[in-house]
C-alpha cells in the first residue's frame, strides 16, 4: 500500500481540519453578505420613509465593525459546528438514501458474483470487508463511501454488473477499495455530504412543487406561495452548488490515479481496469439520475465535460476526476498494450451467447368435477375451476377418474388456491396466484434473476427492480415468432394517434384491473399502461408494490424492441462520429 496507517490517519486529520475551516469561512462569508444586505435594505427603507436623499448614503454603514465581525464569526462558528455534527451522523445512511442503493439479492446470479468478488478482495487486503450494494439503474458507474465509525460501502450499478465481465468488475471493485484503503473515501464522503447531499435533496423539489401546484385545485394565494417556495429553493440550490464547487477544491484528482494504482497492485491486471474504464466512459454513466450531485464519489463523472478532460489550473482546482485518456494511457503502459489492442480485445468478446427460454411445462392433467344443484359439473382443470364462478371451500369435488368425494378445502391443490384467494394476510412467494388463471405461480430463473411464471398462461410477475435488470442483461435470445410479433406491434403503433399517458401513474387505475398477486390481501388492483411512451407494450403494474405483470410474450417483445432501439442508436452514433 502506498501509505502507512499512521500517514493515512495524519493526512485524514489534516484534510478534515482544512475542510472544516473552509466550511467556517463559507458560513462567515454568507453571514457577511446577509448582514450587509440587511443593513442596505434597512437603510433603504429608512431613506424612503424618512425621505433622506441618496447622496447622503455612507457606504461604511453596510460594513460591520470589529464587534459585529466577531458576532458574525461566532454565529458562523455555531452554524459550522451544527452543520458538521449533523452531516457526520448517519453519513453512510444518507449517502445510500441519495443513491437509492439496495442490498444484494442472494437469488440473483450477478449479485452473487459481486458478493464473491467482495470476499475475494477481503482476502487480498488481509481481511478488510466492504459492504456491497447495488444501485438499480441501467447506467454504468461505481462508487465507494466511508464514515467515522469505520463502515464502508462499495456500490455498483446494475448496468455495470451486466455489461462487464468478471475480471473487469473485480478491477472496478478493487479501484473503489483502493479509495477506502488509502483513506480518501472518508474525506470525500464527508466533503460531499456538506453541500452536495443537500443539493441532491433540493433539486427534486422544484419539479414536485410544480406538479403539485399544476394538479392542485387550489388557486390564487396558495399557488403564489408555492411559486415563492420554488424561487427560494432555486436560490438555495445556487448557494449549495457554489459551496460544493468551492469544496471540490479539496478533492484532488490525484486520488483517482492512486486508486487505479492500488487496484492494479491488488488484481495484478491493469488491462482489465483499462477495459472497464473504456467501456464505462463510452456508455451512459448515469447523467440525470438520482445521485448525480455525488459525482466525486464515483469512478467516472456522470457527465462528460471539458473541465475533466482539461489539464489547466482551473481543471486541477475544480475538477474531481482526471482525464480518462490519461488514466487509460497509464494503465495500458503497465499492460504493455495500446488503445487499438484494447478495442480489438473488446470487440472480440462483445457478443454474449444467447439462450431462448423454453416455455414452462404445461399444467398437470388433473381435472375435477364439482357438485352443483344436484349434479356433477365438469371436468375442469385447475385454471378453469379457480377462474370460474367462485370456488367455495365447502364445495363438493371429486377428481376425474377417482371415487373419493371431498370438500374443496380438503383437496391439497384446491386448498392452496382457496387459502390464497381468501387470505387477508401478507402472502409469501409460494402463495402467489396468477392474476388471470388463479393458478399458483412457479419461480424460475430468467436473465439470472428469479421471476414468477404461470404454467397455464405463461405470464410473468416481476418485481420493479428486476425489470431493469432483465432489460440490461441481454442473455435471452428471441425466436422468430417473437421478432415477428414485435415488428407487427411497431407497425401497428405507428398508426395510433392517441397515446395513453404512461407518465402519470394512477390515472388509468381500473376497478376491474388484475389483482396484484403480492398485494392480494390489500385487494390491490394493478393498473394498465404502456411500458413507456416509446415502447407501447401493455403491462399491468401494482400501485403499492410496483410489481409488473407481463402477459405471454410481452416481456420478450419488450426486450427485443429495446435492444433493437439501442443497437440502432449505437449505429447512428458511430455514423456521426
Amino acid at each position, binding site marked *: 500500500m502506498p501509505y502507512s496507517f499512521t500517514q493515512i490517519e495524519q493526512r485524514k486529520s489534516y484534510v478534515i481540519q482544512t475542510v472544516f475551516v473552509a466550511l467556517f469561512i463559507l458560513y462567515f462569508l454568507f453571514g457577511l453578505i446577509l448582514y450587509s444586505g440587511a443593513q442596505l435594505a434597512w437603510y433603504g427603507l429608512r431613506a424612503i420613509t424618512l425621505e433622506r436623499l441618496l447622496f447622503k448614503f455612507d457606504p461604511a454603514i453596510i460594513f460591520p465593525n470589529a464587534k459585529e465581525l466577531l458576532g458574525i464569526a461566532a454565529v458562523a462558528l455555531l452554524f459550522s459546528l451544527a452543520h458538521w455534527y449533523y452531516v457526520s451522523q448517519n453519513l453512510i445512511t444518507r449517502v445510500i438514501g441519495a443513491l437509492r442503493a439496495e442490498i444484494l439479492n442472494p437469488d440473483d446470479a450477478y449479485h452473487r*458474483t459481486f458478493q*464473491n468478488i467482495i*470476499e*475475494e478482495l477481503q*482476502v*487480498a487486503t*488481509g481481511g478488510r470487508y466492504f459492504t456491497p450494494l447495488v444501485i438499480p439503474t441501467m447506467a454504468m458507474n461505481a462508487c465507494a463511501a466511508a464514515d467515522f465509525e469505520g463502515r464502508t460501502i462499495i456500490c455498483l450499478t446494475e448496468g455495470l454488473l451486466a455489461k462487464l465481465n*468478471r475480471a473487469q468488475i473485480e478491477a472496478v471493485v478493487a479501484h473503489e477499495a483502493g479509495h477506502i484503503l488509502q483513506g480518501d473515501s472518508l474525506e470525500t464522503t464527508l466533503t460531499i455530504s456538506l453541500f452536495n447531499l443537500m443539493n441532491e435533496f433540493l433539486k427534486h423539489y422544484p419539479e414536485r412543487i410544480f406538479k403539485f401546484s399544476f394538479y392542485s385545485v387550489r388557486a390564487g394565494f396558495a399557488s403564489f406561495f408555492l411559486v415563492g417556495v420554488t424561487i427560494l429553493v432555486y436560490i438555495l440550490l445556487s448557494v449549495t452548488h457554489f459551496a460544493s464547487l468551492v469544496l471540490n477544491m479539496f478533492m484532488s484528482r490525484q486520488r483517482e490515479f492512486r486508486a487505479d494504482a492500488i487496484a492494479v497492485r491488488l488484481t495484478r491486471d491493469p488491462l482489465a481496469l483499462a477495459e472497464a474504464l473504456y467501456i464505462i466512459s463510452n456508455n451512459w454513466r448515469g447523467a440525470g439520475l438520482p445521485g448525480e450531485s455525488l459525482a466525486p464519489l464515483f469512478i467516472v463523472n456522470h457527465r462528460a465535460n471539458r473541465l475533466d478532460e482539461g489539464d489547466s489550473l482551473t481543471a486541477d482546482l475544480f475538477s474531481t476526476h482526471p482525464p480518462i485518456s490519461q488514466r487509460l494511457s497509464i494503465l495500458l503502459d503497465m499492460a504493455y498494450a495500446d488503445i487499438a489492442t484494447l478495442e480489438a480485445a473488446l470487440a472480440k468478446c462483445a457478443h454474449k451467447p444467447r439462450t431462448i427460454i423454453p416455455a414452462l411445462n404445461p399444467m398437470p392433467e388433473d381435472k375435477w368435477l364439482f357438485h352443483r344443484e344436484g349434479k356433477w359439473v365438469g371436468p375442469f382443470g385447475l385454471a378453469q375451476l379457480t377462474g370460474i364462478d367462485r370456488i367455495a371451500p365447502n364445495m363438493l369435488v371429486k377428481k376425474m377418474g377417482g371415487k373419493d368425494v371431498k370438500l374443496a378445502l380438503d383437496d391439497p391443490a384446491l386448498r392452496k388456491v382457496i387459502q390464497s384467494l381468501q387470505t387477508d394476510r401478507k402472502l409469501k412467494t409460494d402463495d402467489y396466484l396468477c392474476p388471470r388463471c388463479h393458478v399458483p405461480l412457479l419461480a424460475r*430463473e430468467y436473465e439470472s434473476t428469479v421471476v414468477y411464471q404461470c404454467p397455464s398462461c405463461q405470464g410473468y410477475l416481476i418485481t420493479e427492480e428486476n425489470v431493469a435488470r432483465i432489460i440490461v442483461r441481454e442473455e435471452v435470445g428471441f425466436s422468430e415468432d417473437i421478432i415477428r410479433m414485435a415488428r407487427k406491434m411497431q407497425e401497428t403503433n405507428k398508426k395510433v394517434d392517441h397515446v395513453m399517458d404512461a407518465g402519470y401513474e394512477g390515472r388509468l387505475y381500473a376497478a376491474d384491473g388484475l389483482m396484484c398477486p403480492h398485494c392480494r390481501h390489500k385487494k390491490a388492483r394493478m393498473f394498465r399502461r404502456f411500458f413507456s411512451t416509446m415502447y407501447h407494450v401493455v403491462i399491468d403494474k401494482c400501485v403499492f408494490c410496483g410489481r409488473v405483470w407481463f402477459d405471454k410474450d410481452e416481456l420478450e417483445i419488450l426486450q427485443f424492441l429495446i435492444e433493437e432501439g439501442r443497437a440502432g442508436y449505437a449505429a447512428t452514433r458511430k455514423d456521426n462520429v
Partner: protein
Amino acid sequence: MAFVILLVSLVILVVFGIMIYNSLIQQRENVRNGWSQIDVQLKRRHDLIPNLVATAGKYMQHERETLENVTKARQQAVDAGNLKDRQAAENFLTSTLRSLFAVVENYPNLKADRQMSQLHEELTSTENRIAFARQYYNDEVNRYNVAIATVPNNVIAQLFQFEKFDFFEIENIEQRQAPKVEF
C-alpha cells in the same frame, strides 16, 4: 559523565532493539495469518468438490475416470502434511479440475444446469481467493524476509532466531498457465 552517556546510549539501544523485535514479531504473525487464509480457502475448495462431482456425475455417466481422478486428488490434498506436499497436492487438484471442466464442455445440458453454473461460480471464486491469499501471503513473506535480512534488523533476527519463510510457489511451468474455463 561518561558513565551517564554510556547508560543513556545503552537504554536507547535496548529500546530500539525492543521496537525492532516487536516489529518482527508483528510481521511474522502477519505471515502466519496469511498462511491460515490460504488454508481456509483450500478447505473451502475441498468442501465444494464433492458437490461438484455429484452434480456432474448425474450428466456424465461415461466419464467415471475423470470424476474419480478429481475425488482422489481432493483426498490427497486433504491428507497432505508439510508445505511441499501440500503445494504439490493442491497443484495436482487444480489440474484435475481443469481436465474436468474441459470435459464438461461436451455436455451442454450440464453447462446449462443451474446448480452447475452456481458451483462453477463458487469454484471460480475459490480459485481467485486462493490466488489472492497466496499473493497476500507471498507479499507478507517478502516483507518479513527482507526485514530480517536488512541491517540493523538482522542483528535482532539472528539473536532471537527469526527464520525465513518459503514462498508459496507453483512447481511446474504448465501450471503457470491460467486454466481457461468457458461456459
